[in-house]
């Protein structure tokens, strides 16, 4: 016996109106972040004593720039998805919840765009 109405079941979207989309996106970005964060942590440990020239040289390496863009993008994507669930769980006032969700998304996209822009600027810059 199912309590879902036939149309809802047919669409497979459930009460959140998006089915398993959010859940899958959180998992996929999590899997992507496993190699990216490990690579970044190891890189940072290698450069603990590095001065600006070494870091600048590192940022000019094409594959480093690509991985950094992916790291920044998937980090903020994953963070937004995670913070969204936390807000949905603990904030029950509709207006406050909606405002916070919007704020989190705007802030996340702003930070991701800024991060990606500066990575590209460092990679292409002199």
């Amino acid at each position, binding site marked *: 016996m199912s309590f879902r109405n036939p149309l809802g079941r047919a669409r497979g979207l459930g009460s959140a109106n998006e089915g398993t989309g959010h859940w899958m996106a959180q998992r996929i970005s999590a899997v992507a972040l496993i190699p990216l964060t490990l690579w970044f942590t190891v890189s940072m*440990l290698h450069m603990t004593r590095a001065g600006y020239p070494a870091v600048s040289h590192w940022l000019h390496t094409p594959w480093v720039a690509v991985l950094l863009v992916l790291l920044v993008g998937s980090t903020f994507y994953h963070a937004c998805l995670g913070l969204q669930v936390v807000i949905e769980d603990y904030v029950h006032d509709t207006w406050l919840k909606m405002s916070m969700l919007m704020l989190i998304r705007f802030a996340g996209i702003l930070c991701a765009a800024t991060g990606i822009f*500066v990575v590209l600027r460092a990679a292409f810059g002199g």
Partner: protein
Amino acid sequence: MATENRPLSPHLGIYRWQITMTMSIVHRATGIWLSLGALALVYWLIAAALGPDAYATAQLLFGSWIGQMLLWVWVFCLFYHLCNGVRHLFWDAGLGFEIKTLYVSGYTVWVIATALTILAIVLAYASGGGP
């Protein structure tokens, strides 16, 4: 329809403490804290892109004792969230739900996250600098 007087399922206060509940909330806490760490990452990238002066300032901030402390807490949180995230991925695949496995994997996450953090600290300071 009145929604105020519906019966509630038992909440946290009624359960005996278990490591699993602590690990669940710590996963969230580390996630929130790592979101702030992502801001530090963007700041570091901005400083590196702006040039030597801005980068020197960033090095000064991250090199201060409070900067180092924050970085190491972020490193531990990253390793914890990563290890426990992998634990979650196993659950998502339908594996590891036996009570004993749950506890073993839980303690394993703490051990690996702590070991990786210590290893990172050793590697960082062995090469003569902080993070």
